[in-house]
């Protein structure tokens, strides 16, 4: 058993942390999200130069890493810096699906992701699916050497800025069958694809993707027809593990901002950090952050050890829900009225941490899933 980061991981963390401190402060981030596209191609290229994209893939694909612990190092720093560039949808989700399904498409596209050239999104949710990955109403009908896709994918991260998307669609069965789901790769400018893009409340870009008789060549189906659900679950779980690391960074930062603020703010003739009732809240925020950290480590290490560990991912997501809610709400409360103004950074961390609670399924959903995965319930 060993909890130490490797020398390479340590170096990656140091250089990323330095870069974000110097070039990606809160003002810079606010400028980026207010821009037309809502992300910075320049920063994205710099991330690629630092090797952040390559760090997510094994050497066979021009990468130099690919473990969940590698991703953890990056995602924690992204959390601290509240980075909005589409790393999770492009690298973790789409890159992960390509890596998992393999074949020519993986060989072609992963190096383009690793070099920073390609931006992608993954449409897995639908207007009526809530958090069930198997609930797929979107249809894909085989027509000679093509598939014809019709349906709507909901809140697809990076969709308005992506070059390509991967979507889940049903090639057989009825809308809540676990069998019969397939994955398709498509260019965002394909005929019949309409993306209604919007910023999310926490500063990211997403969109609903409407598919109206979209013709996709059969070679763009990745993985086996009708058997995509286990692949999707595995990659979403990997993304949950990465998100847990991001959450530990976000929680850590909210703790820091809050104790800084309370030390500076004076009421009743003294800094409010001297009041025991506030100190204990800050200690509980700290404990929740340590627990988030422990669960992010746990989930990354177990995923690396077991390939796919549903209970580990779901339990980390339950912790994420608890830690983000407690730390976020307390951070705002301790900032008082200032906490709910747009000018203070803390509120932006809070909005992002709150949205992370429901991304990929909320705590209730994952508590039930944990029970099934561990055999507590059928």
């Amino acid at each position, binding site marked *: 058993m060993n*909890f*130490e980061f490797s020398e390479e991981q340590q170096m990656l963390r140091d250089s990323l942390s330095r870069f974000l401190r110097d070039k990606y402060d809160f003002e810079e981030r606010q400028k980026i999200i207010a821009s037309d596209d809502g992300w910075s191609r320049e920063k994205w290229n710099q991330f690629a130069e630092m090797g952040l994209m390559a760090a997510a893939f094994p050497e066979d694909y021009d990468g130099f890493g690919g473990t969940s612990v590698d991703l953890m190092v990056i995602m924690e720093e992204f959390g601290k810096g509240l980075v909005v560039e589409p790393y999770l949808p492009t690298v973790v989700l789409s890159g992960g699906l390509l890596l998992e399904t393999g074949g020519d498409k993986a060989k072609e596209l992963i190096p383009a992701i690793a070099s920073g050239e390609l931006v992608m999104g993954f449409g897995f949710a639908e207007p009526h699916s809530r958090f069930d990955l198997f609930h797929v109403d979107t249809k894909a009908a085989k027509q000679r050497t093509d598939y014809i896709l019709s349906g709507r994918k909901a809140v697809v991260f990076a969709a308005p800025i992506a070059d390509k998307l991967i979507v889940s669609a049903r090639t057989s069965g009825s809308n809540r069958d676990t069998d019969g789901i397939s994955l398709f790769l498509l260019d965002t400018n394909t005929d019949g694809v309409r993306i209604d893009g919007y910023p999310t409340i926490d500063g990211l870009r997403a969109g609903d993707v409407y598919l109206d008789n979209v013709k996709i060549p059969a070679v763009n189906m990745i993985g086996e027809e009708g058997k995509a659900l286990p692949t999707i679950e595995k990659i979403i779980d990997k993304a949950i593990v990465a998100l847990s690391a991001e959450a530990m960074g976000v929680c850590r930062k909210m703790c820091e901002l809050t104790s800084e603020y309370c030390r500076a703010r004076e009421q009743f003739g003294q800094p409010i950090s001297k009041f025991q009732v506030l100190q204990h809240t800050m200690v509980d925020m*700290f404990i929740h952050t340590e627990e988030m950290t422990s669960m992010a480590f746990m989930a990354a290490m177990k995923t*690396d050890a077991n390939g796919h560990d549903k209970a580990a991912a779901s339990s980390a997501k339950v912790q994420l829900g608890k830690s983000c809610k407690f730390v976020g709400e307390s951070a705002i409360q301790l900032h008082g009225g200032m906490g709910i103004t747009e000018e203070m950074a803390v509120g932006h961390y809070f909005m992002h941490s709150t949205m992370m609670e429901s991304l990929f399924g909320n705590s209730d959903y994952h*508590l039930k899933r944990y029970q099934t995965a561990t055999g*507590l*319930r059928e």
Partner: protein
Amino acid sequence: MDLAFSAKDETFRREVIDFLDENWPAEYRGRKRDFTRENYIDWHKKLHAKGWAAPAWPAEYGGTDWTPTQKYIFGQEMANAETFPSLAFNTSMVGPVIYTFGSAAQKQRFLPQTLACDIWWCQGYSEPGSGSDLASLRTKAVREGDHYIVNGSKTWTTLAQHADWIFCLVRTDPDVKKQQGISFLLIDMKTPGVTVRPIITLGGDHEVNEVFLEDVKVPVENRIGEENQGWTYAKFLLLHERSNIAGVHQSRRYLKRLKDVAADQELSGSGPKLMDDPDFSRKVSEIEIDLTALEFTELRALSNEEAGKGPGAESSILKIRGTELQQRISHLAVEVAGYYAMPFQRNQGHNEYPAGPEHSVHAAARYFNGRKTSIYGGTNEIQRNIIAKAILGL
């Protein structure tokens, strides 16, 4: 970073399991309470004979050179076998103080007997007027030649009724800041003037006592370290005490037992299994996930320790969350017992049939007794003060 146990670790685990199979007495198995003084000493001596009474001590004083991973495995297997540990007053509390701050003569005189449990120690810290504000303690020791004359009283003294010696915080200078006038004395319980009065707690347990000290003559050579420096040693001890306080493995073991009971159709008869109640299984899964977070927090702390950083204020997190979980699990046991948590079966003989199923017999008493965990060793509120000051710098 990886979670795998090495082949060497697995060999070690086998050795621990084999040792426990052979040495943990058959008649103790399945028993949760009411171990006698002889039981405690007997088991401590078996661990000592193997060299495992105090794994955390430096090897030169009779500890082990185990890695944190080995300590983790040892703790896990001890819990799986449902043993109790070696005597904590000796191995986690006074022992480390003696080998860290004691003189050569004190080490020679006390350490071997402490390690072997030829002395049973108890802890003289709290007083009727000094609980969380421990440094306000008033038991005074006045120097007369080669002796101190000690007067005062200590309380919450766990298992003092079994103890041979008590390590005591006493006031040797009343005229300075309260933390600066305290000394650390070792007192033989047989000295004239030492009396012990039982305190019976909820559920009828006799674990804690008051200890009265009336003109007790203590040789100066029984003082650890410098006069008036006792507070430093006292805090050091508390840090060590807390580092073992999470009880992750014991909690997992107890929860596992409750899960087995709740999932047992035979115990449910013609009714539905308790585990099929979604509200119940939700509680179980929440506790399990929180235990995982605690376990990995402890593992991270162990890893820090391996990297050369001793137990720090982080141990306060383990104390807070560890004891909260112990209490949640002991309450879950009361829920599992249902009506049969109610019969009071404190003094039941070993040959009598209990009212209700075996798992329910001590559930409520254990829950009531377990309220102590968030109070002792520095209340959980005091732990928060420690984190606020030592880690957050507030």
